[in-house]
């Protein structure tokens, strides 16, 4: 009888271990607001790529109480949580920072507090990638102007200048300390450059009025504007190189697989691997700019 009980016990333990092994890792996706297109796309691509059932939470879908989210996170206690947007990351990091967290679509991730188990895909393409793609479209670009504030973008500017030099491109910068310097500095800069690279800078882009004036002055001198955000298409930017949101979701899934597979992830926060390009062909023809022979095959959207 004792032997029978022992066999039953061992069998039960074996069965439980098999069942728990089959369960697989528990993954949760927290979306700051699934109504935002780029967040929604990242989530869709992530779930498609990871091909494992995931628990999905949309923070924009209803009015959540902090306690409700806290309960949900502790109840689920996922092995890995993919956070889309800052709001999602802050909540996951507040309650379950001991779990693996992968973030994306977070503006300026460097200001976030990160744990040993935090990974992510940054929201900004690095300057070298951007210059490479700008030159892929317009191989004739030699001198690119940049307006920036030393306070926010000194390091970025130096990095861009160094990367550009290696490609035979000169980056000519004007460091601004006050927003009222924007237009006088721009007028001087326009005399020396082939294109203006409009970067994300709180001093340069302090208000809509001065932004419109920057576009107007460049248009008068037929100097193309290169930029990083699709919103500048309506202002008349010549080329916009931005992050490809579906790729970001797939990249987050690739990082998650590595983390859950126990692989060593060398770069904890990666640069985005995919680009999305808008080209204003109407303006290129108007300015008499010559684009690369095969440039048209890498453009997502044309403005004509």
């Amino acid at each position: 009888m004792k032997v029978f009980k022992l066999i039953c016990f061992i069998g039960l333990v074996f069965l439980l271990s098999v069942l728990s092994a089959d369960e697989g890792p528990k993954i949760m996706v927290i979306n700051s607001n699934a109504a935002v297109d780029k967040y929604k796309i990242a989530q869709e691509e992530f779930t498609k790529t990871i091909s494992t059932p995931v628990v999905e939470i949309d923070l924009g879908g209803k009015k959540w109480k902090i306690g409700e989210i806290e309960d949900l996170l502790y109840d689920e206690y996922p092995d890995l949580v993919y956070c889309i947007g800052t709001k999602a990351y802050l909540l996951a990091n507040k309650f379950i920072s001991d779990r693996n967290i992968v973030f994306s679509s977070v503006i300026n991730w460097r200001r976030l507090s990160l744990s040993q188990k935090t990974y992510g895909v940054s929201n900004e393409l690095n300057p070298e990638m951007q210059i490479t793609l700008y030159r892929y479209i317009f191989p004739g670009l030699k001198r690119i102007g940049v307006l920036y504030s030393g306070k926010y973008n000194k390091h970025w500017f130096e990095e861009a200048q160094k990367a550009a030099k290696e490609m035979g491109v000169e980056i000519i910068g004007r460091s601004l300390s006050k927003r009222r310097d924007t237009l006088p500095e721009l007028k001087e800069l326009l005399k020396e450059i082939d294109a203006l690279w409009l970067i994300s800078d709180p001093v340069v882009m302090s208000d809509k009025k001065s932004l419109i004036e920057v576009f107007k002055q460049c248009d008068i001198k037929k100097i193309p504007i290169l930029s990083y955000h699709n919103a500048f298409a309506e202002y008349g930017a010549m080329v916009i190189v931005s992050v490809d949101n579906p790729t970001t979701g797939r990249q987050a899934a690739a990082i998650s697989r590595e983390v859950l597979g126990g692989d060593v992830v060398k770069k904890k926060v990666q640069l985005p691997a995919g680009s999305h390009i808008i080209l204003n062909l109407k303006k290129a023809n108007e300015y008499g700019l010559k684009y690369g022979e095969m440039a048209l095959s890498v453009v997502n959207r044309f403005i004509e």
Partner: protein
Amino acid sequence: MTDNSHQKRRFIALISTIALLLIGLALFCVISAGSGRIKIYFYSSETNINNFKSLKMEFDRYLSKFGPYEFQPFSARDVFEKQVKDKENCLFILSSWHYRHIHKEYSLTPALTGVRNGKKYQRKILLADEKAPDIETTKPGLIASAGSLQYTTSVLKRMLKKYAEHAFRVLTVPKDIDALLAAGHGMAKLAFASRYAFDELKGINPRLCRKMKVLAEGEETLLLIVALPQGFTANRKKMVDMIKNMPLTPDGKKRIRMLGLDGWQELDASDRSRLES
């Protein structure tokens, strides 16, 4: 009085019937005109760039000059294959890899192949950082590729025979240049791209390319294929000439460059045998 109203009612009924018949006839004309359109179906397993809206607008505008043609791009292979099944009066533009896989089932005949820089063949390569270990000794890590997962793994298995049973991990990116930049900047261990894209990048960013090495090379394959179903009954020559002559006008040239080509060429017997073997 009663006769009058009766006649009036009959008259109204007659007019209504005629109106209904006319509406029906108009609808029939519209529908049959639609079905008379010749569609050009496009799907490439070698690129993942979401430019379908631009492609459709540009090609439709160009093709409308020649007759009732319509361009229909697809983003997924399964949707493409489901949609084109048993279609006869249409034309396909697809990768040579895809053509090889479906030409028997779909009874396709190749008409033209794409040309880039005067060449109709291309080669895929696998690249990594110059410090990466040899592919023969270390299993491949994450591979950035603009091709579909099926296409990428199929070509990789022929390229790296040792890993024929290996489950490759692929990060799908929009285009070849993204794959190369991803490996160059450490977002992926390896890049799977065309030799042509790598040569182009060398001209723009030589420093980055110097830091990368070619680990393996695939077989030469034809670029995009223009194919027709065997049951194609419309004017075959007119249709093929329309596509073939695209590079002769600036408008046509612009559209084929959107496909990453600069011309079309007819296939010879050797091309066809390599394509269908």
